[in-house]
């Protein structure tokens, strides 16, 4: 899917300021090897042509089911994997063409918060050294300044600054996630990818962490790409939402519009599948139950990736991939059957 700049989905028509991050036809394909000689037998198209823009201080939600490529997309943006194709521009710098040293110099501006705070914190390091590690790598802070900065960061995420000498296992899940957030904030980033930051937490703790992320965004002027499968939480935290299916963005639009007037059949089904915590309302609601499973990204269907499960698919859906269409201000849909 090659698009001219002015047609890139996610170009916020109302906002004239420059995007902080711009993705153009980003693809991430992983080879599948087979046999003794490890010959390439196929390709997993984890991310297959994604375009969007992210404005400064925006919070874009990226939703989709497991295996749709949302985490891979996040990691590709940060160049934890080199993209197979496409351009990723961060503040007008094309990251895909940077030398490793130049990319490393930019890394402090882009950080990530991971899903499982248990796995992303080294159990043998104290909290103080975990948070100070990025500082040691990328800043010149030493001695008293360094320890002051660590305490300041702990305080900023609502943990007691005296905890620097404790180990991760001494903290609860929610507190560990706060440590992960403190580490991400250390180098004053502008852009943070939150990859399912609340999925491993209990309901009563989720709200605490989400509120903290919102407060930090406001205080520090951060830009978030918020990856989640929790559609309710995305509605709460994101102003704009992108829906991903099998490596492609199928719908992107303002959250209020997407949740009330979604147009793509997949988005509609996804939203109707979320159980409401209101028994009376739930009974009256029309539910769309999709049949079958998500196809394998190693062997995606021809044409529209959703057509095998789509309740309204026609023959043309199998023939060509629908191009994103602009429906209203900032609302884009990739479906042949939407006008």
């Amino acid at each position, binding site marked *: 899917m090659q698009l001219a700049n002015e047609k890139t989905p996610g170009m916020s028509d109302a906002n004239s300021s420059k995007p902080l991050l711009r993705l153009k036809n980003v693809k991430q394909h992983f080879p599948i090897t087979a046999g003794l000689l490890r010959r390439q037998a196929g390709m997993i198209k984890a991310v297959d042509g994604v375009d969007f823009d992210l404005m400064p201080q925006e919070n874009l939600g990226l939703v989709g089911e497991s295996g749709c490529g949302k985490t891979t997309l996040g990691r590709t943006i940060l160049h934890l994997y080199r993209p197979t194709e496409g351009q990723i521009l961060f503040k007008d710098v094309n990251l895909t063409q940077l030398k490793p040293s130049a990319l490393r110099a930019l890394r402090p501006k882009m950080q990530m918060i991971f899903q499982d705070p248990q796995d992303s914190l080294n159990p043998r390091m104290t909290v103080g050294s975990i948070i100070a590690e990025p500082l040691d790598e990328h800043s010149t802070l030493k001695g008293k300044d360094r320890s002051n900065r660590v305490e300041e960061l702990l305080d900023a995420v609502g943990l007691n600054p005296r905890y620097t000498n404790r180990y991760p296992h001494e903290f609860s899940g929610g507190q560990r996630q706060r440590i992960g957030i403190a580490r991400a904030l250390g180098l004053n980033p502008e852009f943070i990818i939150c990859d399912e930051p609340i999925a491993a937490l209990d309901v009563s703790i989720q709200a605490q962490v989400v509120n903290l992320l919102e407060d930090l965004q406001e205080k520090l002027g951060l830009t978030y790409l918020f990856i989640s499968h929790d559609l309710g*939480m995305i509605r709460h935290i994101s102003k704009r939402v992108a829906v991903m299916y099998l490596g492609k963005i199928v719908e992107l639009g303002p959250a209020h519009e997407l949740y009330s007037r979604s147009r793509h059949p997949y988005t509609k089904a996804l939203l109707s599948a979320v159980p409401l915590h209101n028994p009376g309302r739930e009974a009256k609601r029309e539910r769309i139950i999709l*049949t079958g*499973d998500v196809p394998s990204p190693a062997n995606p269907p021809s044409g529209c990736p959703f057509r095998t499960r789509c309740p309204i698919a026609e023959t043309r859906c199998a023939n060509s991939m629908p191009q994103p269409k602009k429906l209203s201000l900032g609302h884009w849909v990739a479906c042949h059957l939407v006008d």
Partner: protein
Amino acid sequence: MLSNPDSDVVLSVTDVVTQFDTADGRVHAVNGVSFDVREGELLGVVGESGCGKTVTMMSLVKLLPMPPGKIVGGSALFDGQDLIQADSDALKKIRGGKIGFIFQDPMTSLNPVLTVGYQLTEALRLHKNSSKSAARKRAVELLELVGIPMAKDRLDDYPHQFSGGMRQRVMIAIALSCDPKLLIADEPTTALDVTIQAQILDLIQILRKELGMAIIWVTHDLGVVANLADRVMVMYSGFIVERADVEKLYSTPKHPYTHALLRTLPQMEGERAQRLESIEGQPPDQLLQPESCPFSPRCVYSFERCTRENPFLEFVSEGHEVACWWDLENDRPREVS
């Protein structure tokens, strides 16, 4: 032999207490839980991780590692016998027979080196003494019942050849194989995607109508039970803190914990909240013997009595029980008879 006083009660649990002796001390996992499940009813059990919801269910059928686990007391009347007192031979006859199970992760609960057909017929041959061919025939019927296409051809496939949702359907088929009177489902849709979860929930609704068994559905997701359960009980720190008919629980929650939990959830419809309400603090340390209300340190309504006495579950209105000293509706301490 004991008999159930209420004829339509399938399972009657009274005062089950389960503890674990660990290197750090004694963990008070379940602290006196009592409940009934009636014929054809779906009872939802909701709570956060560590609240004792799974341990309660596992205590009933002794699927706990013992030691360190220990069932200190209580009874569970099912089909004329007390499951807590029953010996392992008697339990073997009940588990997978009259009581079926569905667990959270279908990949870890299916044996990867045995075919789905073998695992489906195992219970039939053990509990019903079915012949090999009769069991296979029944297995095909079961796979068709749970909506697996080309059931006959898939009998000789291994679990890894099925997708996550299909594996969970296989688990459901195994659980249903011996026509259970009671089905215990422990977070059966937690590992699944929402569109697949919707398929499974839909299937369960159909099977319930068709087969009429009682179901206990354990979950942390308040949304899932809202459209499935007849009654819901909320657990916190090894206690049942609230139990009510499903509409009542969601429309007028009477325990501050349930009340707060429902308000921390972001809404899928209507006005978007400016800020999510949150429950401050952490769940209590279960190494300590609970003597006061376990929720009181996190409760905004907590007053002097809450730190002194642990409230007991009592009826406050028709079909609605709560364990709290505070009367949330009238905003004053509850008058106790």
